[in-house]
């Protein structure tokens, strides 16, 4: 049996906030009788004065001991105390804070007896947790200081250019033979109204002139494996297959505009064209005449595809204005559900379209417009939702706004949400994924316009820069929203039966099965593991554990929670401890 570390306790009165309610004499008497505790002290306010500095000095002199602080919540000052001890050079794993203020003294202020009993229970549980706490050493990851950017569209170009300017080696892989992505297909870019080529040229030039950036055109990533710091990619291109190692990967593979044949007689009736064909007509610069009707929300925002493609309303507004500007006499109509022009510039675009004389007709998705014409388009019939009347609009051209659809790429080991866009972390981390080191930006993440995609590309570059800017990083730093991860899971090979439950539930694909001489065993990748504990929860025989909150420790903590109350009387001397049996 392993030797347990010695625990010292310090109780904080918090200037009477705790001390006036909880009986410190009784707590101290109990702890003095507890043979797991080497020393007990009380103080008025641990966070003020030099008590903490003295404590740190003593802890450094006496390397094996651990310290339990009973005081305010870790959310208030508790965690700061650990930080400050760490600043003095004390290993934070040796310290634990038990909250006896917010969760005890304050909420039980009227019941001093019960509060004291609860404080005693909490401290007893804290001592057990601290004794059983195992802190496996952190893992140093040798980081390959190169970033792989997948996709040479606006998002990928912006990410690569930013990283190149920061001096990071970048490999940019583009499946087609030309950089620029959607910029190669658009006429002008909303909302800046800049020509797509004028926007593309300086971007591509910056990439080509940057010595840090290698560009592989006509190349795909055929396989991607590994974890943060060391991703292995198999690139397949014209010159065969090559292997590449990268510390971080930015996925900017975009989305594809797609219209199925048959929707609104698309592909069957001349004159019914897609939004992308409209863009091509503008790019080719040919004269565009004839009254035009745009139809929005084509096969999106319905039961099957319940998302808004975000780019189609601005595109229709932009092209409608351009048609009107080219020929003010042309009748241009936009049939829409809700006009998606949020914010400042897009709303201004909407107003400009109205001012230019574009006609807007709202329709109900239950009564979609009908295309008229036998061998070519002659018009559209639509039930105007606002006037309640059916209207016939003569038109030589119907433009179906083309929604974006996610691209499927089996090589990218990332989970997708129900429509097929890559799943990202919420709120402040939306270019990050469940795999540290793998970032997603642009329309691969969600439909987005050129400018937004470039912003996301630069944001992803910032995250990747943090990872690859150092030759060695620590596994515990990979969670960007907390200082360190809780712990890394472990699987005990002696008892693991290889059932695979942990592999099925791990949200970070850190668990895998490996063939060993004695059969299949689960293994945990210490770099991918984020310490969530899902594996420990589903393991049928406690082989998968989080060292911080191991099964043994948890059972004993729970047992200790009730140890003082076996005969119903609160605050007995500590007895019936199952902890050390």
């Amino acid at each position: 049996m392993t030797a347990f570390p010695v625990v010292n306790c310090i109780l904080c009165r918090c200037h009477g906030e705790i001390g006036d309610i909880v009986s410190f004499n009784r707590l101290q008497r109990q702890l003095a009788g507890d043979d797991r505790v080497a020393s007990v002290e009380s103080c008025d306010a641990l966070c003020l004065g030099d008590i903490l500095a003295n404590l740190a000095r003593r802890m450094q002199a006496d390397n094996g001991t651990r310290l339990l602080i009973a005081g305010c919540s870790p959310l208030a000052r508790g965690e700061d105390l650990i930080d400050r001890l760490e600043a003095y050079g004390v290993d934070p794993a040796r310290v634990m804070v038990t909250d006896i203020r917010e969760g005890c003294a304050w909420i039980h202020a009227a019941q001093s007896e019960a509060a004291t009993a609860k404080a005693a229970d909490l401290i007893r549980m804290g001592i057990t947790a601290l004794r059983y706490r195992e802190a496996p050493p952190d893992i140093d990851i040798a980081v390959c200081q190169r970033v792989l950017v997948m996709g040479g569209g606006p998002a990928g170009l912006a990410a690569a250019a930013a990283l190149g300017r920061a001096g990071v080696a970048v490999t940019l892989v583009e499946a087609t033979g030309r950089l620029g992505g959607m910029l190669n297909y658009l006429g002008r870019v909303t909302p800046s109204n800049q020509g797509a080529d004028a926007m593309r040229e300086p971007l591509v030039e910056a990439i080509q002139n940057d010595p840090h950036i290698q560009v592989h055109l006509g190349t795909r990533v055929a396989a991607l494996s590994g974890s943060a710091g060391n991703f292995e990619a198999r690139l397949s291109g014209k010159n065969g297959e090559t292997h590449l190692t990268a510390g971080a990967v930015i996925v900017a593979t975009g989305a594809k505009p797609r219209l199925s044949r048959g929707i609104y007689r698309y592909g069957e009736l001349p004159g019914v064209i897609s939004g992308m064909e409209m863009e091509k007509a503008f790019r080719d610069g040919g004269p565009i005449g004839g009254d035009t009707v745009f139809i929005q929300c084509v096969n999106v925002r319905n039961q099957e595809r319940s998302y808004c493609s975000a780019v189609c309303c601005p595109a229709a507004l932009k092209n409608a204005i351009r048609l009107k500007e080219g020929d003010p006499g042309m009748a241009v109509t936009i049939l829409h559900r809700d006009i998606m022009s949020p914010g400042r510039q897009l709303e201004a675009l909407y107003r400009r379209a109205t001012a230019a004389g574009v006609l807007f007709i709202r329709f109900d998705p239950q009564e979609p417009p009908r295309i008229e014409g036998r061998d070519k388009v002659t018009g559209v019939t639509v039930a105007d939702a606002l006037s309640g009347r059916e209207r016939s609009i003569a038109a030589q051209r119907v433009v179906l706004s083309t929604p974006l659809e996610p691209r499927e790429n089996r090589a990218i080991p990332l989970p997708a949400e129900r429509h097929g866009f890559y799943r990202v972390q919420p709120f402040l981390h939306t270019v990050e994924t469940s795999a540290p080191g793998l970032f997603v930006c642009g329309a691969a993440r969600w439909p987005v316009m050129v400018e937004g995609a470039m912003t996301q590309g630069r944001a992803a570059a910032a995250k990747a820069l943090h990872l690859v800017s150092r030759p060695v990083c620590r596994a515990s730093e990979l969670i960007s929203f907390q200082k360190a991860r809780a712990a890394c899971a472990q699987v005990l090979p002696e008892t693991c039966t290889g059932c695979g439950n942990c592999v099925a539930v791990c949200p970070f694909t850190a668990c895998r099965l490996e063939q060993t001489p004695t059969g299949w065993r689960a293994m945990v990748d210490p770099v991918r593991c984020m310490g969530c504990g899902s594996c420990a929860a589903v393991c049928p025989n406690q082989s998968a554990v989080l060292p911080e909150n191991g099964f043994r420790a948890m059972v004993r903590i729970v047992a200790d929670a009730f140890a003082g109350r076996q005969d119903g009387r609160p605050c007995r001397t500590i007895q019936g401890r199952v902890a050390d049996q």
Partner: protein
Amino acid sequence: MMEQPAQSDAIADPVLVVGGGVAGISAALDLARAGRSVHLVERAGELGGRTAHLDKLYPTDHCGFCPVWSEARLCRRHPRISVHTWTTVSELMPGEGFQTAVLHTSPNAIDPERCICCGRCAAACEENAVALTAPHVYPPVFRIDAARCTGCGRCSEACPTGAVDLHRPAEAQRLRIGGVIWATGFEAADLAPAPEFGAGSHPDIMDALAFETWIAEAGPNQGAIRCHDGRPATRVAFIQCAGARDRRLQSHCSAVCCMHALKQARWVRRRQGDGRCVIFYTDLRTEGHGYETYFRQAALAEGIEMVRARPGLVYPLPGGDGIAVKYENTLTRTPAMERFDLVVLNGGLRPAVPEAVEASCLAAGGFVAEDVPGARSCGFCKAPADVETAAVQGSAAAMETLTEVVR
């Protein structure tokens, strides 16, 4: 634990990030991680901005405070980030390759380093001048309202740690900086030019941010949906674009209000039982990440009524009989007048622009322009943005600032 800087720019001047909301926090953290020193300036007493004060965030309905809280802590703990709370930038002067910023820190009578959050000062104050800045921000931040304070000194007598000093002076400091990121967010627009909404005429007509606090689980009603006189509110109306997309106030769309209303309406429906909850909208803008699904599955399934209308008149009925809303349903073309218990005006948000931003750096609508030499903007002060967009823009602004200097 210190990371190596990405480049040999260790001598580069620190970056001034103005605004401690999600955009500012993201920018500050990404700059600091890349090796730059950062001064993060926040007008209020705690980091987190508007997001930290939200009871729930769409589209996950998570608590708004929690995700920001961990980031705010990272900022406070990062060795390269200096956080200045209760501070504004009063002046910004250009120099040769650098700028000088003058920061003004308003006198903070309560020393956060010594405060143990016991609240005895608030209990001792007879004028209710000492109060929490927000009910659910933890650790709690107390603030003395100078307008109410009589200087009686009871609070400083009550304080067990001597944290209260009513005569602490205001501080000003000059900093040499190399770059500014504006992330000052938004504020509620004045609805006076649109009197038909009845803003300010009755406490049960409130804006969406006030309503968020009113129904917050940590708020005055502990999550119950009530009117100001204590009656349960069984009929709640949300009026969208109240103060936005309107030439009299501001022509932009505030971009966050459609989802904000859906989120609030959803919580109202869940808590009020069989009452009514109506959203008066013009265009329902659910173009963001997962928003349409939220609308269909989360909001419509809760029984929220969507009415396409822009009410022309909102006024309190005499005798405390509720609020009348007069509107025309533009899809059925039927004018109607209905009585509601609570009316939420949603949409009037305008960029918060600090004085130190020169007029030449402002874009149309009062937003802070994006690319002024030596300065960038991100978040709502650049263009209407939700939490997700603001955070992405913050990171991108950090990257632009970093590479600009390296280049």
